[in-house]
């Protein structure tokens, strides 16, 4: 058992927001079959959104590009999914939420409270939803206000998910911490784009979107490394993790736990695989506890 902001996880791998998180059943499947230590829902907002038109996600040579556009049935519509997940999964279920301002964030959080999510993750980092996500998350004052607003209305841990599309992610992490965040999650996708040269059309329905997967791992490792030096609260690492080696790297950079998104493309049970790989690594190297390697890279000078 592994404790993260008070939540008990059977392993330090967590399903990332927006991936296989639209339905309660899907979240349960990732926990059960996939072996995830916890699961984060699709980001839920104040009003139903159908998201951007397709193509909304494509695979690239290196990584994936997506612009889902935060499709969600709104918090009233999502309650039954969250309840299903809570009732049928044996792992913590974290509700990812978004809004355009502190009041909206608080409204959505309160609206989901009746389903008893184990924590909230605030999406202030989606790069392709106008007025939401990174539009909020690149402004430290707004990040602090949003965090504080949600902390005010809930009694469970609040994680804040950060965007790498800023000059210095530490300032945003610090703002989240000041707002009372229990952890930060880094990173959301990097702004990116692909163009179909046969036609000249941008490939994504939204024209541009967010880069995830293998391509972003070095960026995510650097963000986690930097946040670890700047913050007291735990950093949860996400971005390009598709093997236990990637997870160990992220943990050594300073991640207290990792999230995995795009790599479910390869296999849903990637979580079990990573969890087991980390265990075997700790054993082989004689580390008594995962804590021994969290942030290890900072000590190696």
């Amino acid at each position, binding site marked *: 058992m592994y404790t993260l902001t008070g939540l008990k996880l059977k392993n330090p791998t967590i399903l990332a927001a927006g991936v296989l998180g*639209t*339905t309660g059943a899907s979240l349960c499947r990732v926990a059960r079959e996939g072996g995830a230590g916890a699961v984060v829902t*699709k980001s839920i907002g104040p009003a*139903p959104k159908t998201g951007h*038109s*397709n193509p909304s996600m494509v695979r690239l040579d290196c990584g994936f590009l997506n612009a889902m556009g935060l499709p969600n*049935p709104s918090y009233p519509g999502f309650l039954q999914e969250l309840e299903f997940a809570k009732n049928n999964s044996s792992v913590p279920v974290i509700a990812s939420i978004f809004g355009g301002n502190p009041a909206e964030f608080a409204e959505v959080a309160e609206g989901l409270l009746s389903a008893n999510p184990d924590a909230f993750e605030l999406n202030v980092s989606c790069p392709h939803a106008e007025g939401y996500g990174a539009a909020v998350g690149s402004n430290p004052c707004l990040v602090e206000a949003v965090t504080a607003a949600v902390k005010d209305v809930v009694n469970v841990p609040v994680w804040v998910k950060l965007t790498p599309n800023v000059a210095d992610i530490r300032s945003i992490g610090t703002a989240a911490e000041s707002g009372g965040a229990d952890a930060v999650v880094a990173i959301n996708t990097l702004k990116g784009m692909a163009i179909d040269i046969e036609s000249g059309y941008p490939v994504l329905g939204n024209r541009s979107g967010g880069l995830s997967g293998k391509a972003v791992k070095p960026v995510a490792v650097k963000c986690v490394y930097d946040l670890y030096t700047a913050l007291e609260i735990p950093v949860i690492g996400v971005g390009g993790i598709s093997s236990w080696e990637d997870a160990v790297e992220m943990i050594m950079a300073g991640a207290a736990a990792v999230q995995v998104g795009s790599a479910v*493309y390869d296999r849903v049970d990637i979580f079990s695989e990573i969890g087991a790989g980390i265990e075997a690594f700790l054993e082989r190297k004689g580390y008594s506890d995962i804590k021994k390697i969290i942030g290890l890279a900072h000590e190696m000078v």
Partner: protein
Amino acid sequence: MLPLNATITQITEESPMVRTFFFDPGFEGLEPGQFVMVWIRGVDEIPMGLSRNNSITVQKVGEATSKLFELKEGDSFGLRGPFGKGFTLPVKGEKILVIAGGVGAAPLSPYAEAAFVAGAEVHTILGARSTGDLLFEGRFDALGKVSVSTDDGSKGVKGFVTDILKSLDVAAYDRIAVCGPEIMMSSVFRLLEERHVLEKAEFSLHRYFKCGIGVCGACCIDQSGLRVCKDGPVFTGVQLIGSELGKYSRDASGRRVKI
């Protein structure tokens, strides 16, 4: 992978609202029942079953399909795929029942053909609203027996494919492959469930697809959480027991919508 550029080589009008678009390059090593994501540039990208390794057969229903209907030979669209899990092929000597309703005949026609080539005996139940809507009757005819139903009785049995199915000894078939409107599929499902033959039946489902590659979760079905785009679109009857089939699906926002 990024969408490949597919050039339309031929367009066949199957019925007033259904056309087959042949394209180049085609796919090699297609599993019948697999689908592609068809990108009508500037409009939308939508899933389509492959009716051959180089054709899709499209019913005009809304914006993207209407735009597709405006394209001419020589025009092109983007194509990603083939994706997903197709139907299980029979082995030589097996007897299969193919149940196709409306454009559901599209992914089933290459399946029936592959089954025939594999040496299976193919019996098709082909349903549509009216004679003119019967899709690929000729292709199925060439493979074995075809039982036709039309809603208006303009050809074959008046009624639904289930009306034909009811009268058959389903125990006589080794495999049953089903694709069509969800209402039809759920009737077939219930009937086969009653007859205790779900383990040899396969159903090709439709759900709202976003990514099409098994990551976003838009297409997951209850209670299993299976992804229609990657774990399906073809599921065994057993996988669908107690599922949302015939009850509800989710729209683009993830909201449940009654079937």
